[in-house]
């Protein structure tokens, strides 16, 4: 049944985006807000506002009982979770389902299955999707490691099987190197985690982050091509684009087909993204994880396909069967999105909350944001202020469009990452598309004044 009244359980720019998509479909909206967020743009756009709790996310946007009380009280027949917060929380989705309210996204079971790395990996293998080669399980002892490593392929990464947070990870280039590293790796694992069991995985040195956007209705899935998000700082994407300039057309077809196979295998419903690592040296791609929600960088796909992904989410959640065949999804031109964050790139990306004293949106391009002149950016949530998206026939044209749009964007009173992007778009490696997931941090390190 088509959605009539939508509860938006999120904030910031995505809440604005969802309000607009709902409006385009004639759906009424109820906007959730913490006490610190009453002034945000989404509250001005929504038909109703529901204050769900104090500023701290754990007491508002992440508070399932408070959110559920607000949802049921609002009389909404559907909930859009946005990204982050409760969007991939199976307990929240279960609570929404139990209240007979439509969750805009896949079911709690799909979220739980694809949210767990081990089960997602198993599903991928079963669907014939390549995963990063690794040991079948825990490895005990040097002999077993040395036997498995050539099958996995050097260089291999040796990880503590009980580990996490990057501790106890070593890289071995060949058998001699591995033999030398193993005793140290085992000792480190034992010291750090009280367990010297290891896990081996192929180390992909020059990996690109490439992801495939899909839309499914529970039976059938189509892909909307890929986005490349290799420019990252501290594992946070800062620049996304589509298509990826690294992929040969034949590889693109295989990559996108693998995403469809995996999504159809799990009966995926809604918009989802399958993330892959792409090895520039070998041309191989490996599935790493699935995000069962809308993503920050979804406008890249909207720009190159002309498909409104948030409206599509709402239509699928409202019970429509997928109206698109794969042949209907046509890719056109090149799009780039950059994230404008309230951070000071000149001071180690220090957060820069505060009042926006002057604001001029870019004269060209699309700017998805929730700020306005006079708005006070609060320190309680992530630093994303907005996303600037440009589209042109070619990648070169998109870079020129980005330069033009960034030139007319003006935010005063707080620091933003716009200057970073103005410099980045001139970097020879960026112009050439010669980047990988560690490029940005190395580039910033090199650019640092001595």
């Amino acid at each position, binding site marked *: 049944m088509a959605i009539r009244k939508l509860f938006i359980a999120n904030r910031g720019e995505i809440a604005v985006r969802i309000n607009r998509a709902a409006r385009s479909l004639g759906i009424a909206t109820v906007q959730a807000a913490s006490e610190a967020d009453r002034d945000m743009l989404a509250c001005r756009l929504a038909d109703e506002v529901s204050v769900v709790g104090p500023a*701290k996310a754990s007491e508002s946007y992440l508070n399932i009982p408070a959110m559920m009380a607000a949802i049921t009280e609002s009389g909404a027949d559907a909930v859009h979770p946005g990204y982050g917060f409760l969007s991939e929380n199976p307990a929240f989705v279960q609570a929404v389902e139990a209240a007979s309210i439509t969750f805009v996204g896949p079911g709690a079971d799909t979220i739980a299955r694809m949210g767990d790395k081990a089960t997602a990996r198993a599903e991928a293998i079963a669907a014939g999707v390549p995963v990063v080669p690794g040991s079948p399980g825990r490895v005990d002892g040097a002999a077993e490691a040395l036997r498995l490593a050539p099958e996995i392929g050097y260089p291999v990464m040796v990880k503590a099987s009980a580990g996490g947070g990057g501790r106890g990870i070593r890289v071995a280039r060949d058998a001699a190197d591995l033999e030398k590293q193993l005793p140290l790796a085992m000792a480190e694992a034992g010291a750090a985690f009280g367990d010297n069991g290891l896990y081996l995985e192929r180390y992909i040195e020059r990996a690109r982050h490439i992801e495939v956007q899909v839309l499914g209705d529970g039976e059938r899935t189509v892909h909307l091509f890929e986005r490349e998000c290799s420019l990252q700082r501290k594992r946070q994407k800062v620049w996304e684009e589509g298509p990826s300039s690294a992929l040969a057309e034949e590889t693109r077809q295989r990559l996108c087909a693998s995403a469809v196979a995996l999504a159809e295998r799990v009966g995926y419903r809604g918009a989802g993204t399958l993330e892959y690592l792409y090895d520039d040296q070998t041309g191989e791609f490996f599935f790493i994880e699935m995000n069962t929600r809308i993503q920050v960088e979804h406008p890249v796909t909207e720009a190159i396909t002309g498909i409104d992904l948030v409206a599509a989410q709402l239509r699928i959640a409202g019970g429509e069967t997928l109206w698109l065949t794969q042949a209907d999804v046509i890719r056109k031109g090149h799009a780039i999105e950059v994230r404008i964050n309230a951070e000071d790139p000149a001071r180690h990306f220090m957060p820069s909350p505060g009042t926006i004293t002057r604001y001029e949106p870019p004269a060209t391009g699309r700017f998805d944001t929730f700020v306005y002149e006079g708005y006070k950016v609060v320190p309680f949530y992530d630093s994303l202020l907005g996303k600037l998206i440009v589209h042109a026939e070619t990648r070169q044209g998109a870079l020129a469009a980005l330069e033009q749009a960034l030139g007319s964007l003006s935010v005063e009173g707080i620091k933003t990452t716009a200057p970073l992007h103005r410099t980045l778009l001139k970097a020879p490696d960026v112009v050439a598309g010669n980047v990988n997931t560690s490029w940005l941090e190395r580039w910033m390190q090199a650019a640092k004044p001595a």
Partner: protein
Amino acid sequence: MATQILAPLPGVFYRRPTPAEPPFKEEGDAVAVGDTIGLVEAMKSFFPVEAETAGRLVAYRIEDGQTVDADDVIADIA
């Protein structure tokens, strides 16, 4: 000489490194220059709140988990 420790930026103030650990300082403790007396969380990052003078931490003015603005008084040093 009595001095005050101010919040370096707006956010949420914490007296402990993690919820499972003891507080950085108790009221009455001695503090040295550069001692961390708490953390401010802003935009998902944590920043230390450090003493700029040595002395005794007389009182915390902000409770654990309370929101602060930049330059709010967090503690008194005597």
